Protein backbone atom coordinates (compact mmCIF):
# COMPACT_ATOMS: atom_id res chain seq x y z
CA UNK A 1 0.00 0.00 0.00
CA UNK A 2 1.25 3.47 -0.79
CA UNK A 3 1.04 5.48 2.42
CA UNK A 4 1.19 9.21 1.92
CA UNK A 5 1.94 10.55 5.37
CA UNK A 6 1.79 14.17 4.28
CA UNK A 7 -1.91 14.04 3.65
CA UNK A 8 -3.56 15.39 6.84
CA UNK A 9 -6.65 13.18 6.40
CA UNK A 10 -4.49 10.05 6.27
CA UNK A 11 -2.66 11.19 9.39
CA UNK A 12 -5.91 11.83 11.24
CA UNK A 13 -7.23 8.39 10.30
CA UNK A 14 -3.98 6.88 11.51
CA UNK A 15 -4.23 8.69 14.84
CA UNK A 16 -7.83 7.50 15.24
CA UNK A 17 -6.72 3.91 14.66
CA UNK A 18 -4.24 4.25 17.50
CA UNK A 19 -6.87 5.78 19.74
CA UNK A 20 -9.19 2.87 18.93
CA UNK A 21 -6.45 0.38 19.73
CA UNK A 22 -5.83 1.91 23.15
CA UNK A 23 -9.53 2.00 24.03
CA UNK A 24 -10.12 -1.60 22.86
CA UNK A 25 -7.03 -2.94 24.66
CA UNK A 26 -8.12 -1.15 27.83
CA UNK A 27 -11.71 -2.46 27.76
CA UNK A 28 -10.72 -6.05 26.95
CA UNK A 29 -8.07 -6.14 29.67
CA UNK A 30 -9.97 -4.12 32.27
CA UNK A 31 -10.87 -7.06 34.57
CA UNK A 32 -7.27 -8.31 34.48
CA UNK A 33 -5.83 -4.86 35.06
CA UNK A 34 -8.26 -4.02 37.86
CA UNK A 35 -7.71 -7.36 39.59
CA UNK A 36 -3.93 -7.11 39.48
CA UNK A 37 -4.09 -3.53 40.79
CA UNK A 38 -6.49 -4.49 43.57
CA UNK A 39 -4.16 -7.28 44.63
CA UNK A 40 -1.49 -4.65 45.45
CA UNK A 41 -3.87 -2.31 47.28
CA UNK A 42 -4.51 -1.98 51.00
CA UNK A 43 -8.09 -2.48 52.18
CA UNK A 44 -8.33 1.29 52.62
CA UNK A 45 -7.36 1.95 48.99
CA UNK A 46 -9.79 -0.71 47.74
CA UNK A 47 -12.74 0.93 49.49
CA UNK A 48 -11.91 4.41 48.24
CA UNK A 49 -14.48 5.88 45.88
CA UNK A 50 -13.87 7.00 43.17
CA UNK A 51 -11.31 4.23 42.57
CA UNK A 52 -7.69 5.26 42.90
CA UNK A 53 -5.31 4.40 40.06
CA UNK A 54 -2.12 5.63 41.70
CA UNK A 55 -1.30 4.24 45.13
CA UNK A 56 1.54 2.83 47.21
CA UNK A 57 1.64 -0.89 46.37
CA UNK A 58 1.64 -3.41 49.18
CA UNK A 59 2.49 -7.11 49.20
CA UNK A 60 0.40 -7.82 52.28
CA UNK A 61 -2.38 -9.51 50.26
CA UNK A 62 0.12 -11.97 48.78
CA UNK A 63 1.65 -12.59 52.19
CA UNK A 64 -1.80 -13.36 53.51
CA UNK A 65 -2.83 -15.85 50.81
CA UNK A 66 0.56 -17.54 50.42
CA UNK A 67 2.37 -17.50 53.75
CA UNK A 68 -0.10 -16.79 56.53
CA UNK A 69 -1.13 -20.43 56.52
CA UNK A 70 -4.87 -19.79 56.78
CA UNK A 71 -5.60 -20.49 53.11
CA UNK A 72 -4.98 -23.53 50.94
CA UNK A 73 -3.90 -21.48 47.95
CA UNK A 74 -0.31 -22.81 47.80
CA UNK A 75 -1.79 -26.30 47.69
CA UNK A 76 -4.22 -25.34 44.88
CA UNK A 77 -1.36 -23.89 42.86
CA UNK A 78 0.72 -27.00 43.40
CA UNK A 79 -2.26 -29.15 42.32
CA UNK A 80 -2.70 -27.11 39.15
CA UNK A 81 0.98 -27.45 38.26
CA UNK A 82 0.90 -31.22 38.85
CA UNK A 83 -2.39 -31.75 36.98
CA UNK A 84 -1.55 -29.54 34.01
CA UNK A 85 2.02 -30.85 33.84
CA UNK A 86 1.01 -34.51 34.07
CA UNK A 87 -1.87 -34.16 31.62
CA UNK A 88 0.33 -32.33 29.13
CA UNK A 89 3.20 -34.83 29.20
CA UNK A 90 0.82 -37.80 28.92
CA UNK A 91 -1.07 -36.23 26.01
CA UNK A 92 2.18 -35.56 24.17
CA UNK A 93 3.43 -39.11 24.74
CA UNK A 94 0.19 -40.54 23.37
CA UNK A 95 -0.37 -38.23 20.40
CA UNK A 96 3.13 -37.72 19.01
CA UNK A 97 3.67 -41.34 17.84
CA UNK A 98 0.04 -41.47 16.71
CA UNK A 99 0.44 -38.32 14.62
CA UNK A 100 3.59 -39.81 13.10
CA UNK A 101 1.78 -43.02 12.15
CA UNK A 102 -1.07 -41.01 10.62
CA UNK A 103 1.26 -38.90 8.50
CA UNK A 104 3.82 -41.53 7.44
CA UNK A 105 1.82 -44.73 7.33
CA UNK A 106 -1.60 -43.29 6.66
CA UNK A 107 -3.12 -45.25 9.55
CA UNK A 108 -6.14 -43.91 11.38
CA UNK A 109 -6.10 -40.63 9.53
CA UNK A 110 -9.50 -41.31 8.04
CA UNK A 111 -11.29 -42.31 11.27
CA UNK A 112 -9.24 -41.62 14.39
CA UNK A 113 -8.29 -38.04 13.49
CA UNK A 114 -11.85 -36.84 12.85
CA UNK A 115 -13.05 -38.75 15.92
CA UNK A 116 -10.51 -37.04 18.15
CA UNK A 117 -11.04 -33.58 16.70
CA UNK A 118 -14.80 -33.95 17.22
CA UNK A 119 -14.15 -34.39 20.94
CA UNK A 120 -12.94 -30.80 20.95
CA UNK A 121 -16.40 -29.70 19.82
CA UNK A 122 -18.57 -31.75 22.18
CA UNK A 123 -20.08 -30.26 25.33
CA UNK A 124 -17.84 -31.95 27.92
CA UNK A 125 -20.64 -32.06 30.48
CA UNK A 126 -21.90 -35.11 28.55
CA UNK A 127 -19.00 -37.12 29.99
CA UNK A 128 -19.06 -35.59 33.44
CA UNK A 129 -21.52 -38.03 35.00
CA UNK A 130 -20.12 -41.36 33.72
CA UNK A 131 -16.58 -40.20 34.48
CA UNK A 132 -17.63 -39.15 37.97
CA UNK A 133 -19.20 -42.56 38.58
CA UNK A 134 -16.24 -44.35 36.99
CA UNK A 135 -13.72 -42.43 39.10
CA UNK A 136 -15.76 -43.18 42.20
CA UNK A 137 -15.58 -46.90 41.45
CA UNK A 138 -11.82 -46.99 40.89
CA UNK A 139 -10.94 -44.50 43.62
CA UNK A 140 -9.74 -41.67 41.37
CA UNK A 141 -12.16 -39.05 42.71
CA UNK A 142 -10.34 -36.08 44.22
CA UNK A 143 -6.90 -37.28 43.13
CA UNK A 144 -4.30 -35.45 41.08
CA UNK A 145 -3.85 -38.58 38.94
CA UNK A 146 -7.52 -38.59 38.00
CA UNK A 147 -7.46 -34.89 37.18
CA UNK A 148 -4.30 -35.33 35.07
CA UNK A 149 -6.13 -38.00 33.04
CA UNK A 150 -8.94 -35.50 32.41
CA UNK A 151 -6.42 -32.81 31.43
CA UNK A 152 -4.96 -35.33 29.00
CA UNK A 153 -8.38 -35.95 27.37
CA UNK A 154 -8.79 -32.21 26.90
CA UNK A 155 -5.30 -31.79 25.44
CA UNK A 156 -5.38 -34.71 22.99
CA UNK A 157 -7.34 -33.01 20.16
CA UNK A 158 -5.17 -29.88 20.16
CA UNK A 159 -1.91 -31.82 20.43
CA UNK A 160 -2.85 -34.30 17.71
CA UNK A 161 -3.95 -31.66 15.20
CA UNK A 162 -0.86 -29.51 15.74
CA UNK A 163 1.46 -32.54 15.51
CA UNK A 164 -0.17 -33.89 12.33
CA UNK A 165 0.02 -30.45 10.73
CA UNK A 166 3.69 -30.10 11.59
CA UNK A 167 4.85 -33.63 10.69
CA UNK A 168 3.28 -33.32 7.24
CA UNK A 169 5.92 -30.69 6.50
CA UNK A 170 8.89 -32.96 7.30
CA UNK A 171 10.17 -34.54 4.06
CA UNK A 172 9.89 -38.30 3.86
CA UNK A 173 13.50 -38.59 2.67
CA UNK A 174 14.57 -37.94 6.26
CA UNK A 175 13.02 -41.25 7.35
CA UNK A 176 14.21 -43.11 4.30
CA UNK A 177 17.85 -42.21 4.92
CA UNK A 178 17.65 -43.36 8.52
CA UNK A 179 15.93 -46.57 7.46
CA UNK A 180 18.86 -47.41 5.16
CA UNK A 181 21.16 -46.94 8.13
CA UNK A 182 19.18 -49.69 9.84
CA UNK A 183 17.16 -47.65 12.30
CA UNK A 184 13.90 -49.16 13.56
CA UNK A 185 10.55 -47.37 13.57
CA UNK A 186 10.78 -46.10 17.14
CA UNK A 187 14.46 -45.29 16.52
CA UNK A 188 13.57 -43.06 13.59
CA UNK A 189 10.86 -41.38 15.62
CA UNK A 190 13.18 -40.81 18.59
CA UNK A 191 16.43 -39.86 16.82
CA UNK A 192 15.25 -38.18 13.61
CA UNK A 193 11.71 -36.85 13.95
CA UNK A 194 11.73 -35.77 17.58
CA UNK A 195 14.71 -33.39 17.31
CA UNK A 196 13.23 -31.87 14.14
CA UNK A 197 9.94 -31.25 15.95
CA UNK A 198 11.29 -29.08 18.76
CA UNK A 199 9.32 -25.95 17.85
CA UNK A 200 5.97 -27.74 17.73
CA UNK A 201 6.76 -29.76 20.86
CA UNK A 202 7.36 -26.49 22.66
CA UNK A 203 4.14 -24.97 21.34
CA UNK A 204 2.05 -28.02 22.30
CA UNK A 205 3.71 -28.14 25.73
CA UNK A 206 2.84 -24.52 26.43
CA UNK A 207 -0.67 -24.50 24.99
CA UNK A 208 -1.69 -27.80 26.60
CA UNK A 209 -0.39 -26.56 29.93
CA UNK A 210 -2.40 -23.36 29.57
CA UNK A 211 -5.62 -25.16 28.58
CA UNK A 212 -5.35 -27.71 31.39
CA UNK A 213 -4.53 -24.97 33.89
CA UNK A 214 -7.68 -23.08 32.84
CA UNK A 215 -10.02 -26.09 33.01
CA UNK A 216 -12.83 -25.60 35.52
CA UNK A 217 -15.80 -27.94 34.96
CA UNK A 218 -14.09 -31.23 35.83
CA UNK A 219 -12.10 -29.62 38.62
CA UNK A 220 -15.39 -28.56 40.15
CA UNK A 221 -17.06 -31.94 39.73
CA UNK A 222 -14.25 -34.36 40.51
CA UNK A 223 -12.37 -32.67 43.36
CA UNK A 224 -13.38 -31.70 46.87
CA UNK A 225 -10.27 -31.32 49.00
CA UNK A 226 -7.01 -32.98 48.00
CA UNK A 227 -6.74 -32.26 44.28
CA UNK A 228 -8.54 -28.91 43.96
CA UNK A 229 -6.94 -26.87 41.13
CA UNK A 230 -6.45 -23.13 41.44
CA UNK A 231 -9.30 -22.26 39.05
CA UNK A 232 -11.74 -23.93 41.42
CA UNK A 233 -9.90 -23.04 44.63
CA UNK A 234 -9.71 -19.34 43.82
CA UNK A 235 -13.50 -19.19 43.49
CA UNK A 236 -13.81 -20.35 47.12
CA UNK A 237 -12.32 -17.04 48.15
CA UNK A 238 -15.35 -15.16 46.96
CA UNK A 239 -17.69 -16.86 49.39
CA UNK A 240 -15.40 -17.55 52.30
CA UNK A 241 -13.57 -14.24 52.05
CA UNK A 242 -16.64 -12.22 51.10
CA UNK A 243 -15.23 -8.85 52.07
CA UNK A 244 -11.52 -9.52 51.70
CA UNK A 245 -11.25 -8.30 48.13
CA UNK A 246 -7.51 -7.76 48.40
CA UNK A 247 -6.81 -11.40 49.27
CA UNK A 248 -9.28 -12.58 46.61
CA UNK A 249 -7.60 -10.42 43.98
CA UNK A 250 -4.17 -11.76 44.96
CA UNK A 251 -5.42 -15.36 44.64
CA UNK A 252 -7.01 -14.49 41.29
CA UNK A 253 -3.80 -12.90 40.03
CA UNK A 254 -1.77 -15.97 40.95
CA UNK A 255 -4.34 -18.06 39.06
CA UNK A 256 -4.23 -16.04 35.83
CA UNK A 257 -0.65 -14.83 35.48
CA UNK A 258 1.11 -18.17 34.76
CA UNK A 259 -1.07 -19.06 31.73
CA UNK A 260 -0.97 -15.47 30.46
CA UNK A 261 2.82 -15.36 30.44
CA UNK A 262 3.12 -18.84 28.93
CA UNK A 263 0.43 -18.09 26.36
CA UNK A 264 2.29 -15.07 25.06
CA UNK A 265 5.26 -17.28 24.20
CA UNK A 266 3.15 -19.61 22.09
CA UNK A 267 0.81 -16.99 20.75
CA UNK A 268 1.52 -17.60 17.03
CA UNK A 269 0.08 -21.08 17.53
CA UNK A 270 -2.99 -20.04 19.49
CA UNK A 271 -5.20 -19.44 16.49
CA UNK A 272 -4.22 -22.69 14.85
CA UNK A 273 -4.79 -24.74 17.99
CA UNK A 274 -8.21 -23.25 18.59
CA UNK A 275 -9.25 -24.07 15.06
CA UNK A 276 -8.66 -27.74 15.90
CA UNK A 277 -11.93 -29.49 15.33
CA UNK A 278 -13.01 -27.41 12.38
CA UNK A 279 -10.01 -28.29 10.28
CA UNK A 280 -9.28 -31.70 8.92
CA UNK A 281 -5.68 -31.56 10.09
Amino acid sequence: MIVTRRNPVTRLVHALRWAAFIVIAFILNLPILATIMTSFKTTGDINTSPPVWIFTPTLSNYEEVLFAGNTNLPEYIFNSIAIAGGGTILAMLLTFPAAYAMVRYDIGKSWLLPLVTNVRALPLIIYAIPIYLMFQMVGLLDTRTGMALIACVINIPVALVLFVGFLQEIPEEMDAAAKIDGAGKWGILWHIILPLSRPILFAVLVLSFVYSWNEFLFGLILTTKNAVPVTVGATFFVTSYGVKWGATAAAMTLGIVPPMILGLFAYPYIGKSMLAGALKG
Partner: protein
Amino acid sequence: MARSKAGVHETERANARTFLIGLCIFLALMLGFPTVANLWYSFSNVSIYDLTGTAFVGLANYAEAVTNPNLWDALGFSLKFAVICTVLEVALGLAMVFILHPILTKRPWLTGLLMLPMMVSPALMGVMYRLILNEFTGVVPAYLYMMGLPINLLGRNWIYETVIAIEVLQWTPFAFLIMLTARQSMAGELEEAAAVDGATGAKFGRLIVMPVIMPSIIIVSFIRFIDSFRVFDHIFVLTGGGPGNETTSISIYIYKLFFTHSKIGEAVAVSVMLLIASMALLYSALRLAVRRAPT
Protein backbone atom coordinates in the same frame (compact mmCIF):
# COMPACT_ATOMS: atom_id res chain seq x y z
CA MET B 1 -4.23 -39.67 -0.15
CA ALA B 2 -2.64 -42.12 -2.59
CA ARG B 3 0.65 -40.22 -2.56
CA SER B 4 2.69 -42.23 -0.05
CA LYS B 5 0.84 -45.53 -0.19
CA ALA B 6 2.88 -47.17 -2.96
CA GLY B 7 6.15 -46.88 -1.05
CA VAL B 8 4.78 -48.35 2.14
CA HIS B 9 4.54 -52.11 2.49
CA GLU B 10 1.47 -53.65 4.00
CA THR B 11 3.47 -55.35 6.78
CA GLU B 12 5.15 -52.09 7.63
CA ARG B 13 1.77 -50.44 7.99
CA ALA B 14 0.68 -53.25 10.26
CA ASN B 15 3.80 -52.79 12.39
CA ALA B 16 3.24 -49.06 12.56
CA ARG B 17 -0.05 -49.70 14.33
CA THR B 18 1.96 -49.90 17.56
CA PHE B 19 2.29 -46.12 17.34
CA LEU B 20 -1.47 -45.81 17.76
CA ILE B 21 -2.04 -48.36 20.50
CA GLY B 22 -1.44 -46.02 23.44
CA LEU B 23 -3.81 -43.38 22.17
CA CYS B 24 -6.50 -45.92 21.26
CA ILE B 25 -6.44 -47.61 24.67
CA PHE B 26 -6.54 -44.28 26.45
CA LEU B 27 -9.48 -43.02 24.37
CA ALA B 28 -11.36 -46.29 24.80
CA LEU B 29 -11.03 -46.00 28.58
CA MET B 30 -11.64 -42.29 29.00
CA LEU B 31 -14.23 -41.67 26.26
CA GLY B 32 -15.42 -45.01 24.92
CA PHE B 33 -16.31 -46.48 28.29
CA PRO B 34 -18.13 -43.33 29.50
CA THR B 35 -20.14 -43.26 26.26
CA VAL B 36 -21.26 -46.86 26.75
CA ALA B 37 -21.95 -46.17 30.44
CA ASN B 38 -24.04 -43.14 29.46
CA LEU B 39 -26.14 -45.26 27.08
CA TRP B 40 -26.49 -48.08 29.60
CA TYR B 41 -27.51 -45.82 32.47
CA SER B 42 -29.94 -43.88 30.32
CA PHE B 43 -32.07 -47.03 29.94
CA SER B 44 -31.81 -48.20 33.53
CA ASN B 45 -33.02 -47.31 36.96
CA VAL B 46 -29.68 -46.08 38.23
CA SER B 47 -29.13 -44.48 41.61
CA ILE B 48 -26.10 -43.42 43.59
CA TYR B 49 -26.54 -46.58 45.71
CA ASP B 50 -26.80 -48.98 42.79
CA LEU B 51 -24.28 -48.04 40.12
CA THR B 52 -24.59 -51.30 38.19
CA GLY B 53 -27.89 -50.00 36.84
CA THR B 54 -29.21 -53.46 36.08
CA ALA B 55 -32.91 -52.64 36.33
CA PHE B 56 -33.97 -51.92 32.77
CA VAL B 57 -36.60 -49.19 32.60
CA GLY B 58 -36.83 -48.65 28.86
CA LEU B 59 -37.43 -45.07 27.84
CA ALA B 60 -38.63 -43.87 31.25
CA ASN B 61 -35.57 -41.65 31.81
CA TYR B 62 -36.01 -40.09 28.38
CA ALA B 63 -39.70 -39.50 28.97
CA GLU B 64 -38.90 -37.82 32.27
CA ALA B 65 -36.20 -35.73 30.61
CA VAL B 66 -38.26 -34.37 27.72
CA THR B 67 -41.33 -33.65 29.86
CA ASN B 68 -39.33 -31.44 32.21
CA PRO B 69 -40.02 -27.89 30.99
CA ASN B 70 -36.73 -26.69 32.48
CA LEU B 71 -34.88 -28.70 29.83
CA TRP B 72 -36.40 -26.65 27.04
CA ASP B 73 -35.73 -23.41 28.94
CA ALA B 74 -32.07 -24.38 29.32
CA LEU B 75 -31.80 -25.39 25.65
CA GLY B 76 -33.45 -22.13 24.65
CA PHE B 77 -31.05 -20.15 26.83
CA SER B 78 -28.01 -21.90 25.37
CA LEU B 79 -29.16 -21.46 21.77
CA LYS B 80 -30.04 -17.80 22.20
CA PHE B 81 -26.84 -17.15 24.15
CA ALA B 82 -24.73 -18.86 21.49
CA VAL B 83 -26.35 -17.00 18.59
CA ILE B 84 -26.13 -13.57 20.23
CA CYS B 85 -22.52 -14.08 21.35
CA THR B 86 -21.39 -15.45 17.99
CA VAL B 87 -22.94 -12.59 16.02
CA LEU B 88 -21.50 -9.94 18.35
CA GLU B 89 -18.05 -11.52 18.47
CA VAL B 90 -17.78 -11.87 14.69
CA ALA B 91 -19.13 -8.35 14.06
CA LEU B 92 -16.85 -6.71 16.62
CA GLY B 93 -13.87 -8.81 15.55
CA LEU B 94 -14.44 -7.85 11.92
CA ALA B 95 -14.70 -4.16 12.79
CA MET B 96 -11.43 -4.49 14.73
CA VAL B 97 -9.74 -6.09 11.71
CA PHE B 98 -10.70 -3.16 9.48
CA ILE B 99 -9.74 -0.54 12.07
CA LEU B 100 -6.56 -2.05 13.48
CA HIS B 101 -5.02 -4.01 10.60
CA PRO B 102 -2.89 -1.12 9.26
CA ILE B 103 -1.20 -0.48 12.61
CA LEU B 104 -0.80 -4.12 13.69
CA THR B 105 0.87 -5.59 10.62
CA LYS B 106 4.29 -4.19 11.44
CA ARG B 107 3.92 -4.63 15.21
CA PRO B 108 2.79 -8.20 15.96
CA TRP B 109 3.47 -7.82 19.70
CA LEU B 110 0.59 -5.33 19.90
CA THR B 111 -1.72 -8.14 18.80
CA GLY B 112 -0.43 -10.14 21.76
CA LEU B 113 -1.75 -7.44 24.07
CA LEU B 114 -5.26 -7.99 22.69
CA MET B 115 -4.92 -11.77 23.12
CA LEU B 116 -4.44 -11.72 26.90
CA PRO B 117 -8.13 -12.32 27.84
CA MET B 118 -8.10 -15.58 25.85
CA MET B 119 -5.36 -16.96 28.09
CA VAL B 120 -7.40 -16.47 31.25
CA SER B 121 -9.53 -19.25 32.69
CA PRO B 122 -13.19 -18.37 31.95
CA ALA B 123 -14.09 -19.26 35.55
CA LEU B 124 -11.56 -16.81 36.96
CA MET B 125 -12.66 -14.26 34.38
CA GLY B 126 -16.14 -14.59 35.87
CA VAL B 127 -14.78 -14.01 39.38
CA MET B 128 -12.79 -11.00 38.21
CA TYR B 129 -15.92 -9.45 36.72
CA ARG B 130 -17.61 -10.11 40.01
CA LEU B 131 -14.88 -8.01 41.56
CA ILE B 132 -15.03 -5.09 39.14
CA LEU B 133 -18.83 -5.10 38.85
CA ASN B 134 -19.40 -5.34 42.61
CA GLU B 135 -21.95 -2.77 43.74
CA PHE B 136 -19.79 -1.38 46.55
CA THR B 137 -16.13 -1.80 45.62
CA GLY B 138 -16.23 -2.37 41.84
CA VAL B 139 -14.60 -0.02 39.37
CA VAL B 140 -17.38 -0.09 36.79
CA PRO B 141 -20.35 0.72 39.08
CA ALA B 142 -18.29 3.51 40.68
CA TYR B 143 -17.91 5.28 37.33
CA LEU B 144 -21.47 4.48 36.24
CA TYR B 145 -22.65 6.08 39.47
CA MET B 146 -20.60 9.18 38.78
CA MET B 147 -22.21 9.40 35.34
CA GLY B 148 -25.62 9.25 36.99
CA LEU B 149 -26.35 5.62 36.13
CA PRO B 150 -26.75 3.81 39.45
CA ILE B 151 -27.30 0.32 38.04
CA ASN B 152 -26.20 -2.99 39.48
CA LEU B 153 -24.94 -5.03 36.54
CA LEU B 154 -24.97 -8.20 38.64
CA GLY B 155 -28.57 -7.59 39.71
CA ARG B 156 -31.57 -9.39 38.35
CA ASN B 157 -32.36 -6.78 35.69
CA TRP B 158 -28.97 -6.80 34.04
CA ILE B 159 -27.49 -10.23 34.70
CA TYR B 160 -28.50 -11.67 31.30
CA GLU B 161 -26.79 -8.84 29.42
CA THR B 162 -23.81 -9.09 31.76
CA VAL B 163 -23.12 -12.79 31.17
CA ILE B 164 -23.35 -12.19 27.42
CA ALA B 165 -21.03 -9.17 27.61
CA ILE B 166 -18.43 -11.15 29.56
CA GLU B 167 -18.43 -13.97 27.01
CA VAL B 168 -18.19 -11.48 24.15
CA LEU B 169 -15.38 -9.46 25.76
CA GLN B 170 -13.36 -12.58 26.45
CA TRP B 171 -13.72 -14.22 23.03
CA THR B 172 -13.92 -11.37 20.52
CA PRO B 173 -10.08 -11.44 20.49
CA PHE B 174 -10.27 -15.00 19.17
CA ALA B 175 -12.58 -14.05 16.29
CA PHE B 176 -10.37 -11.04 15.66
CA LEU B 177 -7.16 -13.08 15.63
CA ILE B 178 -8.42 -15.64 13.11
CA MET B 179 -9.85 -13.01 10.76
CA LEU B 180 -6.75 -10.83 11.12
CA THR B 181 -4.57 -13.78 10.08
CA ALA B 182 -6.69 -14.15 6.93
CA ARG B 183 -6.48 -10.41 6.24
CA GLN B 184 -2.71 -10.44 6.69
CA SER B 185 -2.35 -13.32 4.24
CA MET B 186 -3.53 -10.99 1.45
CA ALA B 187 -0.67 -10.08 -0.84
CA GLY B 188 0.33 -6.43 -1.10
CA GLU B 189 0.18 -6.63 -4.90
CA LEU B 190 -3.52 -7.42 -4.69
CA GLU B 191 -4.13 -4.20 -2.80
CA GLU B 192 -2.07 -2.17 -5.25
CA ALA B 193 -3.81 -3.71 -8.25
CA ALA B 194 -7.17 -2.97 -6.66
CA ALA B 195 -6.16 0.64 -6.02
CA VAL B 196 -5.14 1.00 -9.67
CA ASP B 197 -8.52 -0.35 -10.74
CA GLY B 198 -10.19 2.25 -8.60
CA ALA B 199 -11.29 0.05 -5.71
CA THR B 200 -10.58 2.11 -2.61
CA GLY B 201 -12.14 2.63 0.79
CA ALA B 202 -15.45 0.90 1.38
CA LYS B 203 -15.51 -0.60 -2.10
CA PHE B 204 -12.10 -2.18 -1.50
CA GLY B 205 -13.25 -3.62 1.80
CA ARG B 206 -16.46 -5.05 0.41
CA LEU B 207 -15.22 -6.40 -2.92
CA ILE B 208 -11.63 -7.40 -2.18
CA VAL B 209 -11.18 -7.98 1.55
CA MET B 210 -14.50 -9.62 2.45
CA PRO B 211 -14.20 -12.57 0.02
CA VAL B 212 -10.72 -13.29 1.43
CA ILE B 213 -11.91 -13.22 5.04
CA MET B 214 -15.20 -15.08 4.37
CA PRO B 215 -13.93 -18.65 4.97
CA SER B 216 -12.46 -17.51 8.31
CA ILE B 217 -15.74 -15.90 9.28
CA ILE B 218 -17.55 -19.18 8.69
CA ILE B 219 -15.04 -21.22 10.69
CA VAL B 220 -14.92 -18.71 13.53
CA SER B 221 -18.72 -18.54 13.71
CA PHE B 222 -18.92 -22.31 13.90
CA ILE B 223 -16.32 -22.61 16.67
CA ARG B 224 -17.69 -19.73 18.70
CA PHE B 225 -21.21 -21.13 18.35
CA ILE B 226 -20.32 -24.56 19.76
CA ASP B 227 -18.15 -23.07 22.49
CA SER B 228 -20.81 -20.59 23.58
CA PHE B 229 -23.53 -23.22 23.38
CA ARG B 230 -21.79 -25.38 25.98
CA VAL B 231 -20.98 -22.39 28.23
CA PHE B 232 -20.56 -23.25 31.91
CA ASP B 233 -17.65 -21.64 33.75
CA HIS B 234 -18.21 -17.91 34.03
CA ILE B 235 -21.99 -18.18 34.38
CA PHE B 236 -21.63 -20.81 37.08
CA VAL B 237 -19.30 -18.70 39.23
CA LEU B 238 -21.37 -15.55 38.69
CA THR B 239 -24.94 -16.77 39.09
CA GLY B 240 -24.94 -20.55 39.54
CA GLY B 241 -27.63 -20.53 36.83
CA GLY B 242 -29.93 -18.12 38.65
CA PRO B 243 -31.81 -16.06 39.53
CA GLY B 244 -34.31 -18.90 39.33
CA ASN B 245 -33.27 -20.67 36.14
CA GLU B 246 -32.78 -17.50 34.14
CA THR B 247 -29.14 -18.09 33.23
CA THR B 248 -29.15 -21.90 33.28
CA SER B 249 -27.36 -23.12 30.18
CA ILE B 250 -27.68 -26.73 29.07
CA SER B 251 -24.34 -27.59 30.71
CA ILE B 252 -25.42 -26.03 34.01
CA TYR B 253 -28.80 -27.79 33.67
CA ILE B 254 -27.19 -31.24 33.44
CA TYR B 255 -24.82 -30.35 36.29
CA LYS B 256 -27.72 -29.33 38.52
CA LEU B 257 -29.83 -32.38 37.65
CA PHE B 258 -27.00 -34.62 38.78
CA PHE B 259 -25.31 -32.78 41.65
CA THR B 260 -28.19 -30.80 43.13
CA HIS B 261 -31.20 -32.98 42.45
CA SER B 262 -29.49 -36.41 42.24
CA LYS B 263 -31.59 -37.34 39.20
CA ILE B 264 -28.91 -39.48 37.59
CA GLY B 265 -31.13 -41.26 35.08
CA GLU B 266 -32.68 -38.06 33.80
CA ALA B 267 -29.31 -36.26 33.65
CA VAL B 268 -27.79 -39.15 31.70
CA ALA B 269 -30.71 -39.22 29.27
CA VAL B 270 -30.24 -35.51 28.58
CA SER B 271 -26.49 -36.13 28.09
CA VAL B 272 -27.16 -38.85 25.53
CA MET B 273 -29.61 -36.68 23.61
CA LEU B 274 -27.12 -33.82 23.65
CA LEU B 275 -24.37 -36.13 22.40
CA ILE B 276 -26.53 -37.33 19.50
CA ALA B 277 -27.59 -33.78 18.61
CA SER B 278 -23.97 -32.55 18.73
CA MET B 279 -22.75 -35.40 16.54
CA ALA B 280 -25.51 -34.75 14.03
CA LEU B 281 -24.61 -31.06 13.92
CA LEU B 282 -20.89 -31.79 13.53
CA TYR B 283 -21.52 -34.37 10.86
CA SER B 284 -23.69 -32.06 8.78
CA ALA B 285 -21.24 -29.18 9.25
CA LEU B 286 -18.44 -31.40 8.05
CA ARG B 287 -20.49 -32.52 5.05
CA LEU B 288 -21.20 -28.89 4.23
CA ALA B 289 -17.51 -27.99 4.54
CA VAL B 290 -16.48 -30.86 2.27
CA ARG B 291 -19.03 -29.84 -0.35
CA ARG B 292 -17.85 -26.23 -0.23
CA ALA B 293 -14.17 -27.06 -0.56
CA PRO B 294 -13.68 -30.27 -2.54
CA THR B 295 -10.00 -31.06 -2.06
